[in-house]
């Protein structure tokens, strides 16, 4: 009886050992090893804004005169504004360097690809809203400038350096 038990235990031991060896062999045939590391990705606050081409010239001449009217105007939409911002709740504001212009210069953002155009603004040295709700976007709009002069204001030149700023809304 004791001998019989010994034989049974011995068979169980051998069978189990073979099973472990086979399983181990199978694992080696599939996966030989793993390795790894951690990669951290950081994105800074990025804001970029630019105008497509350089200077805009608005020239009011006799061609813009309407007989009997004091006000003359001319428009230009040859330039575009482009921006990119990855911050939420952002707008674009605009201001001019010219503190005391002789004539009136107005600006409107046309067809913004993202956000909402503010109503037409008369440019001044104080920043005014041009585009709203542009947060976390890359987009563009056409810049529609309108120069207005009164016949009674006579002749002259106004030179504006215009600044566009992406700011918190």
């Amino acid at each position, binding site marked *: 009886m004791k001998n019989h038990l010994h034989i049974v235990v011995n068979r169980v031991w051998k069978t189990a050992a073979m099973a*472990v060896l086979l399983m181990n062999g199978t694992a*080696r045939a599939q996966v030989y090893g793993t*390795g790894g590391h951690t990669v*951290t*990705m*950081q994105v*800074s*606050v*990025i804001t970029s804004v*630019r105008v497509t081409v350089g200077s805009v010239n608005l020239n009011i001449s006799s061609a813009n005169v309407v007989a009997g009217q004091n006000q003359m105007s001319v428009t230009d939409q040859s330039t575009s504004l482009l921006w990119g911002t990855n911050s939420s709740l952002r707008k674009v504001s605009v201001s001019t360097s010219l503190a005391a212009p002789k004539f009136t210069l107005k600006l409107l953002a046309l067809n913004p690809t993202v956000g909402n155009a503010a109503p037409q603004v008369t440019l001044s040295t104080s920043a005014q809203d041009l585009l709203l709700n542009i947060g976390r976007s890359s987009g563009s709009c056409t810049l529609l400038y309108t120069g207005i002069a009164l016949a009674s204001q006579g002749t002259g030149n106004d030179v504006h350096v215009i600044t566009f700023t992406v700011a918190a809304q």
Partner: protein
Amino acid sequence: MRSFAIFVILCSAGSLTQLRAQISVQGGNPLMSVTTGTAGAQPVSVTNAATSLRWRKQNVITKITVSTSCPGQRFTLTVLATNLTYGVAAPQVTLFNGMPATNFVLNIPTGNPVHKTCTLQYTASATFAQGNSAELGNDVHAITYTLVAQ
């Protein structure tokens, strides 16, 4: 029965040690920062090739797969095997949280040298619409490379 249990433990421990030794990443844990962007376009992507993968030859043709765990992932990270002298690099892999193990290096031959390497070329990119880390936090990828029979 006690000796059988010891035998199983030794087998398992041996296997684990062997698994760890067969493939490893050299060069630490990179930090990649996207810091600039272009108006009307997108932030400029950055590339890091400061780390490498080193693995032992096997008796069968093998391949290496890659996967990552990055809960709450916001941005885009890809990896490509470069400077590979043995085997064939798979196309660039886009790493995303919970992805299945994806082919990274294929057809690794059985011959010498014992240790083979490749450079890990990571590219980090983001769109303006994806936001920034100050508001959303960093992406932290726990990336795993696995050497398997092909």
